[in-house]
């Protein structure tokens, strides 16, 4: 940026033009502003989640976040500023809108009980509670503090964690931190295959 942010602010905001501008009769325009159906759209820079070219995309959402209207995605556009894809998208990238707005999306936590032949709904807290209980029971039951030669190993090798590779770096770090804290050694990721 040639003009750094500080120097911009110093010059302050330009004086607003007098209401009469150059003296035009603003009445007709004033009337029109009253009836304008203004929509506020936000443009979000994102990255296509598919292959590793990392094409830049711009997601247009309509709806004013401030007035707790949940924004709706209206258009996904290639980002021409992105040096790699220069705004182009492949057939998967250009149909990303169908990946964001898709009626096959899973929308609520479900559980399949042992022996059952169907999914049941389950509350978030209940699911988290059960998973934590089962994990702790398993860890306490099978935790290996010392190996056969008496060396400290602190291993919890009966729980496996499989991470995907459209998970973000930060999520992967939280996985490594939490799983290694529990002693998990069966830590694997799609990066392996």
């Amino acid at each position, binding site marked *: 940026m040639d003009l750094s942010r500080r120097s911009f602010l110093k010059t302050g905001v330009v004086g607003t033009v007098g209401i009469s501008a150059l003296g035009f009769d603003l009445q007709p325009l004033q009337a029109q502003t009253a009836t304008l159906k203004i929509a506020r759209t936000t443009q979000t820079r994102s990255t296509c989640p598919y292959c590793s070219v990392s094409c830049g995309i711009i997601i247009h959402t309509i709806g004013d976040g401030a007035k707790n209207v949940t924004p709706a995605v209206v258009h996904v556009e290639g980002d021409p500023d992105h040096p790699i894809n220069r705004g*182009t*998208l*492949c*057939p998967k*990238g*250009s149909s990303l809108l169908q990946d964001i707005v898709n009626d096959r999306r899973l929308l609520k936590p479900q559980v399949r009980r042992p022996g059952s032949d169907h999914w049941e709904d389950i509350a978030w807290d209940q699911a988290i509670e059960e998973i934590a209980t089962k994990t702790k029971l398993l860890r306490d039951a099978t935790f290996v503090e010392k190996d056969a030669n008496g060396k400290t190993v602190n291993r919890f090798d009966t729980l496996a964690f499989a991470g995907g590779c459209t998970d973000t770096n930060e999520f992967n770090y939280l996985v490594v931190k939490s799983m290694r804290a529990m002693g998990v050694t069966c830590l694997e990721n799609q990066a392996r295959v």
Partner: protein
Amino acid sequence: MSDRKTLQVQRISGHPGPVAGAGMQREEQVCKLIDTTTCIGCKACEVACVEWNDMPFQPTMFDNTYQTMPDTHWNYWNLIKFNEVTNEDGTFQWLMRKHQCMHCADPGCLAACPADGAIVQYRNGIVDFQEENCIGCQFCVSGCPFNVPKFSPTTKKVYKCTLCSDRVGQGLEPACIKACPTGCLHFGTKSDMLMLAEKRVKQLQTVSGFKEAGTYDPQTIGGTSVVYVLHDASNPEKYGGLPKNPRIPLSFTIWKNWFKPIGLIASMMAFAGVILHYVTEGPRRPQPQPPVKEVDGGEGKKEN
């Protein structure tokens, strides 16, 4: 409908009278250049066409090829044709050709179409279908040398790629052009596109060893607004049936140039004959009725 100014009509199908733009010096003719030698058949342009024209999802069937469907469809106007070709010299090629309306200078569909105003050719070369005037007779389907227009059983109308006449009318390039990731689609004036094509052809001939490389702009139909750069311009057939010398089917030329005018003259002659007879012979006078023989018993033959 798009703004009239830039899309001035040049020729209208089934239209007896003269047309405003006819014969005027063609304003800059628009042209779409497709470089089949750098196309990787990724179908981004198919998706762009479907999305711009809001075409609904339609179930497709596996058909022993990477091609999305066997041919263009009434609501799928842009299709990449995949062709596995073994040349005489044994070399193998997997040719990918973006197939859509060629927007001919002398369009077979327009020539064949009897409906007034159903097919319009603009001065910039675009051949556009006006859905409201189409009577669904499908003459254009058989008139097209490239087998592009397709009939829709639901709406009983015929559709094809319009070279995004609505976008071009607004000064934009067609939707498929902007979608190409490898940049093998270009849009601009025909002279510019032919120059660009020539540059690429020269590179193909000298560097890539395609001696027969060339530009496909068939003059048998007066040239087209869609131009290909081909590895082998001497044999375009192998690119999924791209005709070497596309012509309006003979049956139409005969019908259009011979039968129709002859038929017209014949019917006018007959009409003239009737008038002449009237003038010379006068109106039909009541004929002296031959006496009706009384038939005994009243069972005269009544059937007539």
